[in-house]
């Protein structure tokens, strides 16, 4: 499965919850599949989906899912020790690991070579790290959201993209409606 197929499959699981989605194609795909005010689309700043989602999870009690990619996590690898050492049970980090920088033309990442992000997350001190194959993600994600324990999911999948337009929503609109959803 490629990322857009995974997002289509897990969209009903994500729908009731606050989701911070990675820059580029992941946000565009989620926007196309199930646009709603509980989605925060990153239009810039590669690498910070995990940090934004984690800050949000620390600041309030609702479940938060950060959708990240292997390339983005490699960009902001320092996030994993911060998350590990300040764990909060309402946070789930979903790393879609397709071994490539999808939004920029599928150049290979080191996560698709010798670097194992599951091992990295564990070595950083994350207690609850689950590696899962794409087709098995749904129940694992639901379990992570339902559990009181913070979970890092590394979802292995194929690399590949679909063609779709950029998000033209104004960033302040995205932020405002998201904050209203946080308060609701």
């Amino acid at each position, binding site marked *: 499965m490629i990322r857009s197929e995974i997002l289509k499959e897990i969209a009903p699981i994500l729908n009731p919850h606050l989701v911070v989605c990675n820059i580029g194609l992941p946000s565009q795909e989620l926007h196309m599949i199930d646009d709603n005010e509980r989605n925060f689309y990153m239009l*810039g700043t590669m690498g*910070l989906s995990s940090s934004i989602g984690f800050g949000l999870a620390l600041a*309030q009690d609702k479940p938060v899912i950060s959708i990240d990619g292997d390339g983005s996590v490699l960009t902001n690898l320092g996030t994993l020790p*911060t998350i590990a050492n300040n764990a909060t049970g309402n946070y789930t980090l979903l790393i879609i690991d397709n071994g490539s920088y999808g939004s920029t033309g599928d150049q290979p990442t080191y996560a698709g070579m010798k670097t194992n992000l599951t091992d990295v997350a564990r070595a950083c001190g994350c207690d609850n790290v689950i590696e899962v194959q794409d087709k098995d993600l749904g129940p694992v994600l639901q379990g992570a959201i339902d559990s009181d324990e913070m979970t890092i999911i590394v979802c292995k999948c194929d690399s590949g993209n679909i063609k779709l337009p950029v998000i033209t929503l104004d960033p302040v609109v995205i932020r405002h409606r998201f904050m209203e959803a946080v308060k609701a």
Partner: protein
Amino acid sequence: MNIDKKIADDLVANDVSFITTVPCKQLAGVIEEVEKRDDIFHIPSNKEDEGMGLCAGAFMGGKRPAIIMQNTAIGVTINTLATLTQFYRMPLPMIISYRGELREPVACQVEMAVHTKALLAQLNIPTYHFHWQKDVEEFDNILKYTFMSNKPVAILTDANFWGGYGDQ
């Protein structure tokens, strides 16, 4: 006046309850003070752009955030400031140790100091420079201004403000 306590008092009085820090020798006292306060959740970051991401999330979660860091971080965070904090119009007080200014003992620090105000000006970030201890009296107003305007705001605090590095 204890400026570490005054800064922490003003942060608490302005309901700033989520603070991330990347350490600097000059900031050790204020970081320690922030860590002590029950009204503040203190979360150290590994890098300043990561910290700004945490602050963005905390703000959307209903908390007033702040970041404490060195001026070298301006070189690290320009993209984050422009495409996250400014693009989505979020407030962020940045309490910055202004290394490489008067009374600085480390020559390399001067190399970023000479760019600091120019970079902040280029980003249209409101910038205040604390050089004398009495300048801290403005801090409360700067915090109010930051959360009124929904912008990142820089407070540069140099070695003279912090009392220097002792005899050199």
